[in-house]
């Protein structure tokens, strides 16, 4: 297998740092507690008007969490909410890695600082004054919150920002993994960030992909998704680099697969060929059989189309594996989702449990796999597989191993 990929002995890639902030918690340990408890963090939207949308809820990070140790005053005024999320998750990842020196950041997002663009437009419609416009323009681009997060963590490293829709976070981690595995880098910080914004919220609502009810991934009577937000980073490092500085490995990354489903811009091919190919390619990349997968953290948005196609693909590739979608607890955080879910997978490997798929009422008999319904449970977990599926037909699968 390795010879087919042109490398005789690929580098082992270890996860040596982890940071995550999500509606489920302000750091990794708080997220872990919520996963174990099966907490539902979806709540009514507070940051913009939802009186005319069908869906009125989302997973949101409390503002108070986003002030933890970050600057106050003028600098704080300009920081986008996304910058705060990214800065906090990055800080935790760097601290947990204990002295790692990442050479590169690879990060995914879909909206970046979009809410500043929204504010710019609303002010344009209502006022002739241009006071404050420059701040909004200068900070709305997807790269600016990342610049701020890096600066707040005293890092000055090149950054690759991937915007592959909802698979962005997984793509970022997968690319960082490949760079280290093939010896192009020794330490990469990768992840995703996504603040909730009105335009995207209404977008999903307009497509009738968002639900007015609870989000019920893989339920026979699922009605759609709710959105979420958050940020997560993994510090990936070659085994050699980690050993040289005595770093503790949290998990090992072993596989990455991608595919592009060109069927439609927003709908997956009904056969599930997109996620199936990504999973098969990830297994091939990890030189392992599907039978070795102990848990699948599914993309599981709870839309009719996503779950039908992804469910078919998981059934075909992995058979009777335990599956859950942690989006049931915090909503879909789009470009950050793959990174947050990879972080959850590391926690599952470390703590030997299966995160739950809450709000689950009725199984869909179409699929072979078992949904980890409503409650987390202890389990022997050596390999986990995490799927991400996005608009534009992007599919990405990560495989992580217990160390």
């Amino acid at each position, binding site marked *: 297998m390795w010879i087919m990929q*042109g490398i005789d002995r690929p580098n082992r890639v270890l996860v040596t740092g982890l940071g995550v902030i999500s509606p489920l918690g302000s750091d990794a340990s708080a997220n872990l507690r919520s996963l174990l408890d099966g907490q539902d963090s979806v709540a009514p939207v507070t940051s913009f008007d939802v009186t005319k949308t069908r869906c009125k809820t989302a997973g949101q990070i409390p503002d108070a969490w986003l002030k933890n140790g970050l600057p106050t005053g003028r600098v704080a005024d300009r920081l986008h909410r996304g910058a705060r999320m990214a800065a906090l998750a990055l800080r935790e990842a760097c601290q947990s890695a204990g002295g790692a020196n990442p050479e590169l950041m690879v990060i995914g997002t879909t909206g970046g600082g979009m809410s500043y663009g929204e504010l710019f*437009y609303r002010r344009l419609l209502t006022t002739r004054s241009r006071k404050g416009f420059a701040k909004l323009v200068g900070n709305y*681009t997807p790269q600016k919150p990342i610049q701020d997060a890096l600066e707040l963590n005293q890092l000055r490293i090149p950054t690759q920002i*991937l915007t592959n*829709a909802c698979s962005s976070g997984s793509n970022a981690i997968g690319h960082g993994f490949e760079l280290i595995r093939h010896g192009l880098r020794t330490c990469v910080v990768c992840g995703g960030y996504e603040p909730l914004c009105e335009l995207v919220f209404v*977008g999903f609502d307009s497509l009738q992909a968002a639900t007015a009810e609870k989000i019920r991934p893989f339920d026979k009577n699922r009605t759609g998704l709710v959105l979420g937000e958050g940020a997560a980073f993994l510090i990936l490092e070659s085994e050699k680099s980690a050993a040289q500085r005595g770093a503790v490995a949290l998990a090992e990354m072993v596989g990455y697969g991608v595919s592009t489903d060109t069927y439609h811009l927003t709908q997956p091919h009904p056969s599930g060929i997109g996620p199936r190919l990504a999973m098969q390619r990830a297994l091939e990349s990890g030189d392992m059989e599907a039978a070795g997968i102990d848990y699948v953290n599914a993309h599981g948005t709870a839309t009719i189309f996503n779950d039908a196609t992804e469910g078919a693909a998981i059934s075909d590739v992995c058979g009777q594996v335990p599956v859950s979608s942690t989006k049931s607890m915090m909503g879909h955080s789009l470009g950050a989702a793959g990174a947050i879910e990879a972080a959850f997978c590391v926690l599952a490997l470390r703590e030997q449990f299966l995160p739950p798929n809450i709000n689950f009422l009725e199984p869909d008999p179409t699929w072979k796999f078992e949904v980890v319904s409503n409650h987390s449970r202890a389990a022997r977990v050596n390999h986990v597989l995490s799927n991400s599926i996005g608009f534009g037909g992007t599919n990405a699968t990560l495989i992580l191993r217990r160390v």
Partner: protein
Amino acid sequence: MSFSIQGIGAATPLGPTGLETWSGLCRGQQAPRTRFTNSLADRSYFVCRVPGKFVADAARQPRLRRSGTISLLGAAAGFDAFADAGLKPDSGLSARMAVVFAICSGGVNYTRRFYHEIVTQGANSASPLLFPETVYNAAASHLAALLGIDGQSYTLVGDSSVGLGAIHFATELLTIQPQLDRCLVVGTEEADWLLADAFASWRIATNRDQFEVYGRSGGTIFGEGAAAVLIGRTGPLAIAGSSPGLPFRSFRESESAARESFGNLRAEGLPEIIVSSANGTFADEVERKVFSEYYPAVPVYALKPAVGEALGASALLQVAVAGLALRHQQLPGTLAVGSKLPSVNRKTRSISAYQALVTSVGFNHQVNALKLCLTQSPY
């Protein structure tokens, strides 16, 4: 591992292909400036637009019938790069190919329209037809579909330097994946009044119909367009150096980052030409200082006075022009030049060059540089 540019494509205000754009630049053409107005405010801006007829072939594709201009431009440039390489996209090629897109503002026209509906008519009136095309990777998805690519498709977002980072990303993919033969890298951007107005409030864009480079920094004029390079493993136009770029936070930091980024590529020999990102903003002064220090005698060509600042497409267009300059051994003359950088090439002339440096100072994020090298005599 070495990589080469096998095909060059573009769709710009000067022409529907890379070669026609190149001819226009060599003839000293300046793209017409269209006045942009909007009922939202009484401010108007000039922009270099791509005529609709230049993307007519792309617009006939059923997949693109509802897509935004950004996707049409990207598809046109991508197909042109294939044609330039003497290749026809087919399943045999696409199975061993990846697509990487470079974007800055993305589908801003559809985004503005969609959000305008939300604000003025209410969220329940926002069109579901518009929203999917607002997604950053829509253009990449469309082109991947047209080319039949089921593997790797990535979109990178950044400032006007993102194209150079995208080329570096493509070389990483080709290094990691020996089964890939080629990677098509496309930079594309569409113009919109909102973009000009936003950047004017940030003092990046001007409302005049001209701007000069390496002179008084009064802001730039936006352009739209796309450029594409088909990167493979063999060919006479080698990518001799690339990087993901370096971040900067301040003017002072941008200078040190540019010194590091541009200077890193001196080790393999001095370039004979430079294709710069000068656009009438602070970026000109950053480039001027570093060029004066490291490359004082190397002729510099800046194409943005001719075609405008096309953001995500800019750096790819610079690479396309640098490649064509080496291929044709000719360097166009820079239009509208100030007096601050004596080494600017002012008239189209023949050159004898094997190496070209492409530089980019982005407006809020990164600097980057890339070197191209002819591996065979052009004569």
